């Protein structure tokens, strides 16, 4: 099916609110535009899966709005949402079919479900994985199950992929292959991926933007390059830190630091500019994990 080119975001949440006993999603705003891969990060229980479930309409919401491909999420599980779901590929954190089902039946089930199911492409993906169609889901390793899930999500040629911890359980080689598949997927115009993951090194390799959620709130939403290419960690002694803070090179509103026994790590939004201003202070490259640590655990001055 030809992808429909959309002017607005392909995936969007505006003020998404959902209350449970002891946990709430609080006015989550999130958007994934055409051609974008958005990495969705956060600690366990921060609200990533809840947000994804709300976007997919498998749970109701208490406030705000969510939509995928222009269809409101609460319509996705109604008869009118079926056509939109033909264009959505979903991978949860495990192979989501009963264990007794054989891979041949996995194919049948998807062929029944999707009018756009491409049996030939699926066979190719399965052959690449070296999986026998007689194998049962329960006999697959976690990694193989995830690969099969990804193959199922890709084989109906979706426009949007939503992956919830899809690379969890994969070894580094398999994660490489999975990321290659995702890059191939994104090579077609009009597509987008929302990908939650704890393995931020994967996101560093594929994501365009990183959205972090903590305790049900979005705490940052930044282009990945701003984090990994521009930002840095200044390894300061206490005196350095005071000097940097007083200089105004880092705005006091942006000043986030992590205190260690032997010094203070300081988040600097532009490590190259910082290195020019303070050549004597070592500045390291920032990873997404580091950025999360500064944002979630770091203190302000």
């Amino acid at each position: 099916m030809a992808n429909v080119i959309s002017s607005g975001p392909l995936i969007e949440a505006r003020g998404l609110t959902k209350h449970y006993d002891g946990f709430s999603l609080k006015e989550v705003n999130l958007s994934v535009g055409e051609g974008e891969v958005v990495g969705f990060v956060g600690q366990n229980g921060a609200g990533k899966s809840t947000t994804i479930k709300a976007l997919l309409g498998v749970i109701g919401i208490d406030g705000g709005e969510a939509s995928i491909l222009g269809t409101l999420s609460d319509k996705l599980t109604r008869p009118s949402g079926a056509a939109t779901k033909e264009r959505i590929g979903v991978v949860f954190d495990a192979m989501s079919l009963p264990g007794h089902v054989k891979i041949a039946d996995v194919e049948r089930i998807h062929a029944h479900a999707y009018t756009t199911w491409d049996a030939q492409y699926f066979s190719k993906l399965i052959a690449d994985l070296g999986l026998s169609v007689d194998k049962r889901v329960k006999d697959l390793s976690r990694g193989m199950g995830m690969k099969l899930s990804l193959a199922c999500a890709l084989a109906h040629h979706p426009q949007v992929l939503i992956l919830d911890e899809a690379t969890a359980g994969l070894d580094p080689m398999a994660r490489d292959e999975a990321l290659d598949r995702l890059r191939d997927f994104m090579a077609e115009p009009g597509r987008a991926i929302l990908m939650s993951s704890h393995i931020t090194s994967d996101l560093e390799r594929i994501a365009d933007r990183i959205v972090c959620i903590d305790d049900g709130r979005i705490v940052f939403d930044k282009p990945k390059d701003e984090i990994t290419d521009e930002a840095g960690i200044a390894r300061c002694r206490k005196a350095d830190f005071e000097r940097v803070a007083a200089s105004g090179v880092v705005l006091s509103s942006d000043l986030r630091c992590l205190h260690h026994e032997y010094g203070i790590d300081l988040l600097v939004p532009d490590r190259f500019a910082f290195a020019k201003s303070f050549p004597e202070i070592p500045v390291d490259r920032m990873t997404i994990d580091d950025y999360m640590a500064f944002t979630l655990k770091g203190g302000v001055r």
Partner: protein
Amino acid sequence: MKRAFLIELTIFRDYGIQLLGLGLLVSVLVGVGMQTVLVAPSVITTMFFMMGVMAAAAYDEQNDWGRFRLTMPLSRRDVVLGRYGAIVVLGLSGMVIGLAAAFLVSGLAAMGVLPNNLAAKLVLDSEATYGMAFSTALCMFIGATVASVVAPVYFKLGQTKATQYLPTVIVLLFILPVIFLANSGLFDNGIPGLDAITSILELLNTSAGVTVICAVLVVLSAIALSVSAFVSLKLYESREL
């Protein structure tokens, strides 16, 4: 709905075969004990209706299949109607296979393939055939009723939670009313409507009567399943997965 129905059948296929094997074994054991083939369709029909609905709910929870299914191009309505369609097809398949097995054994007995003393007991004469038709229809009604009661509970709560609550539901619906009525004194002067029931049962003495009662049981089963499907639709609309 067709998509959901076909998916259900694909999921059910292996279990259906297992269940059929079990049903035939139970039928043989009960049949040998009672020295009749009458029981085969009744046993298999009841098993297929009741076990089908329970197994389906269990599969929904395996690997979060129930949640993932809703990310496919299926609506909640499709899921519910597909499930009821699959339960009915499974139950009726059990009935057809049970009847075929009973007629096959009876046919073999009539052809003299089986030992004489066994053959005499297994041949279905006209009276036994009508008896089998009635017991099969009654067991279909029982199976469909149980499926109709438990399916909405499974749709609302899922299999794990429903397993905790269903014994209470069964006790409240089927056991407490009997205990209450038995101890209420209402039946001290005889069971009201017993005459009507007796006259209905007398219909079983005629082939036309058996046909009518079987038809009524089929209609009652369809009504029970339809009402149940309606309730399940309402409950599943708001289910959080």
